């Protein structure tokens, strides 16, 4: 493992120089490397471990577990798709060589995070992943420069808390090794220490997966990053955060650690705290996503909400909830990746991300449309796509635990997701095609093939989820979360829940039948006639004799139905409190503090220098004499 990771890291630098000669070759090498890593994952044996090197007298350990396999597999699925996608897409970019280098570097580093056997290794790879991804972000739109900074700062906030906690652990147990630390934590008598460490470690995951207090970077970073890279950000990089959250809540025996702190339904209060954060993220993400006019920001907020689902699922520490949360990692990764790639395809052709400026692209880009359609079905959790199964599992757990408020929030998020995923669907693909896009073509095959492949995988896993549930079950067994319960029952085609079971095959068949009937009806009924938005006018933007409410219409664009699509609903929370403003205030505070320091100590005249010299002297004298 060590050699592979290091050589891929080294290769990434080589790729830069190769890409300088021809970025296409670089992109192909990237894709080949990605494919190799994908295959490599299957050759590794679970449980094997390797020493990467030594640092500060501690061994840097790489351990390959079921969790590593699962998360790496999901990551590689997304990254590989994007890498293939990028072979063509990169010609619309300004920095193809650097993109190739950092993408490959980030890939290796993320795998390193998943393989890490101790806290320090995880930190190192984590930082490399953050750094390399942070350097891709500003290649996007103009706003992306700021996005990269916000991303770096938020991420570092979490990471440094994590680092602090790691060293707290090290100074107490003399060990970074995850397995050992888990054991030590289980037997540690000091509750404040455990809670502190738990929350600090989780902070890294919270920052990375965009859970509530540190979620604001997602909107700006995902929304402004290079389009295809948003797929990696949202589909893969955010999952690093989920991985850390899984480590601290499930791998560390939290149930045992926090015995006596149970708050509600046998969930310890620290876990419950995370769960509450997850629930908050669902609300915030959903409501904010509905408001967005920029399709990428919309999906960015949906990532916040889905990160919340994952966290809620994992934090329940219930067999089915945990599996649901972990399965949701897979589902959301795929869905988000497809959606962002579909958007990237749209932007590749139309050069805009504003929903209200588009429409009717279904006629021009049907394959992209189909991919997007399937992805949002999965994202919104509608059968028969795989997205439904994970959400269903999370609901099952919440209901069984009797956590009705959280369950309600989860349902609410689900309904909200119908609203927000429909907005780009209607605004971008359906409706009227603006005249300026009448020459738009479908993207080349090299770009739609990865999308369609991911759609197919997501679809198949929706019908037959047992292959992907197998490693999840193994993970659950590793973490000893109700090991007696069996959820995936492949022989009976059942996913067993608490209040009932889910038979994806039957449901799929029913859907196929329903779809067949619907299609039949569609073909039988007379076809609708295509008319212009404002029927009698001849040229776009030049209405003749069109009026409504006693006035002529000069701006027909505003009468486009996807302008302010959910205005009625949005009005209900128009004056919502903004967390971003709070964070901005925090930034301002530090900035002002800097100004204060600058003005008081660094700017003034020699008199002030004399003053400070003497004052320091006097203070030292006063303290020490």
């Amino acid at each position, binding site marked *: 493992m060590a050699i592979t990771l290091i050589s891929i890291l080294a290769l990434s630098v080589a790729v830069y120089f190769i890409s300088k000669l021809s970025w296409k070759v670089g992109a192909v090498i990237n894709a080949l490397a990605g494919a190799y890593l994908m295959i490599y994952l299957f050759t590794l044996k679970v449980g094997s471990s390797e020493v990467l090197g030594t640092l500060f007298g501690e061994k840097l350990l790489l351990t390959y577990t079921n969790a590593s396999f699962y998360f790496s597999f999901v990551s590689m699925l997304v990254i590989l798709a994007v890498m293939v996608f990028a072979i063509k897409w990169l010609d619309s970019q300004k920095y193809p060589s650097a993109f190739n280098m950092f993408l490959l570097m980030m890939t290796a580093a993320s795998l390193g995070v998943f393989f890490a056997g101790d806290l320090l290794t995880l930190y190192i790879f984590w930082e490399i992943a953050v750094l390399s991804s942070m350097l891709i972000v500003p290649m996007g739109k103009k706003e992306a420069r700021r996005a990269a900074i916000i991303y770096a700062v938020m991420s570092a906030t979490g990471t440094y808390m994590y680092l602090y906690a790691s060293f707290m652990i090290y100074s107490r147990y003399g060990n970074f090794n995850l397995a050992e630390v888990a054991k030590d934590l289980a037997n540690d008598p000091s509750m404040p220490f455990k809670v502190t460490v738990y929350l600090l470690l989780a902070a890294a995951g919270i920052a990375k997966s965009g859970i509530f207090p540190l979620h604001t970077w997602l909107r700006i970073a995902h929304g402004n990053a290079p389009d295809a890279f948003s797929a990696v950000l949202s589909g893969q990089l955010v999952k690093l955060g989920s991985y850390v959250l899984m480590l601290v809540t499930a791998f560390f025996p939290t149930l045992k650690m926090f015995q006596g702190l149970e708050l509600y339904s046998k969930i310890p209060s620290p876990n419950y705290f995370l769960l509450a954060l997850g629930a908050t993220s669902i609300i915030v993400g959903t409501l904010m996503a509905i408001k967005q006019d920029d399709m990428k920001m919309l999906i960015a907020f949906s990532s916040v909400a889905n990160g919340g689902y994952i966290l809620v699922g994992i934090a329940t520490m219930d067999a089915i909830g945990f599996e649901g949360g972990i399965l949701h990692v897979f589902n959301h990764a795929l869905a988000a990746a497809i959606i962002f790639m579909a958007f990237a395809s749209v932007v590749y052709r139309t050069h805009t991300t504003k929903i209200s400026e588009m429409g009717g692209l279904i006629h021009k880009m049907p394959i992209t449309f189909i991919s997007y359609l399937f992805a949002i079905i999965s994202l919104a959790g509608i059968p028969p796509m795989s997205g439904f199964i994970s959400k269903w599992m999370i609901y099952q757990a919440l209901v069984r635990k009797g956590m009705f408020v959280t369950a309600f929030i989860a349902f609410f998020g689900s309904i909200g997701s119908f609203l927000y995923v429909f907005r780009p669907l209607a605004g971008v693909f359906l409706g009227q095609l603006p005249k300026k896009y009448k020459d738009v073509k479908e993207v080349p095959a090299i770009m739609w093939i990865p999308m369609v492949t991911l759609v197919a995988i997501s679809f198949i896993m929706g019908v037959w989820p047992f292959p992907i549930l197998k490693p999840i079950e193994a993970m659950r067994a590793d973490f000893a979360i109700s090991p007696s319960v069996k959820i995936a029952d492949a022989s009976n085609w059942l996913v067993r829940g608490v209040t009932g079971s889910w038979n994806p095959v039957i449901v799929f068949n029913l859907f196929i039948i329903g779809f067949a009937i619907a299609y039949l009806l569609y073909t039988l009924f007379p076809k609708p006639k295509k008319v212009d938005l404002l029927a009698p006018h001849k040229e776009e933007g030049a209405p003749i004799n069109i009026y409504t409410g006693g006035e002529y219409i000069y701006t027909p664009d505003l009468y486009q139905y996807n302008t302010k699509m959910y205005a009625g609903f949005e009005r209900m929370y128009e004056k919502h409190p903004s967390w971003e403003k709070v964070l901005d205030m925090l930034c301002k505070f530090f900035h002002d503090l800097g100004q204060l320091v600058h003005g008081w100590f660094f700017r003034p*005249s*020699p*008199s002030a220098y004399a003053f400070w010299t003497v004052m320091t002297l006097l203070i030292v004298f006063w303290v020490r004499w």
Partner: protein
Amino acid sequence: MVYWISIILMGIGIYGLLTQKNLFKQLISLAIIDTAVNVFIIAAGYVEGGKAPIYTKALPSFLKGAFVDPLPQALVLTAIVIGVGVLALGAALLVRVKEKHKNLDVENMKGVGE
């Protein structure tokens, strides 16, 4: 006593640095502090009734209490020269400051933003 004088001189120098708005006066205040330190050093080497440490016909040999400590005097010699160097450098800088910022008064200097 001389200690006191030197320390009070230092205080005066610091007072000057704190209150004077004219840069040249501040430089002079710095020179006052320098001088005060020199006085302090000389005082640290004084022996009651001692003479300058030079052997002459009248004082041909080392008697206890006959000479003051010569080392501080040597140090002061060095310190004075250093003080002169600093003063000259500061004065030269002030010539240029005056040219560039039009004024030596801290509050009326032009172009000293940031």
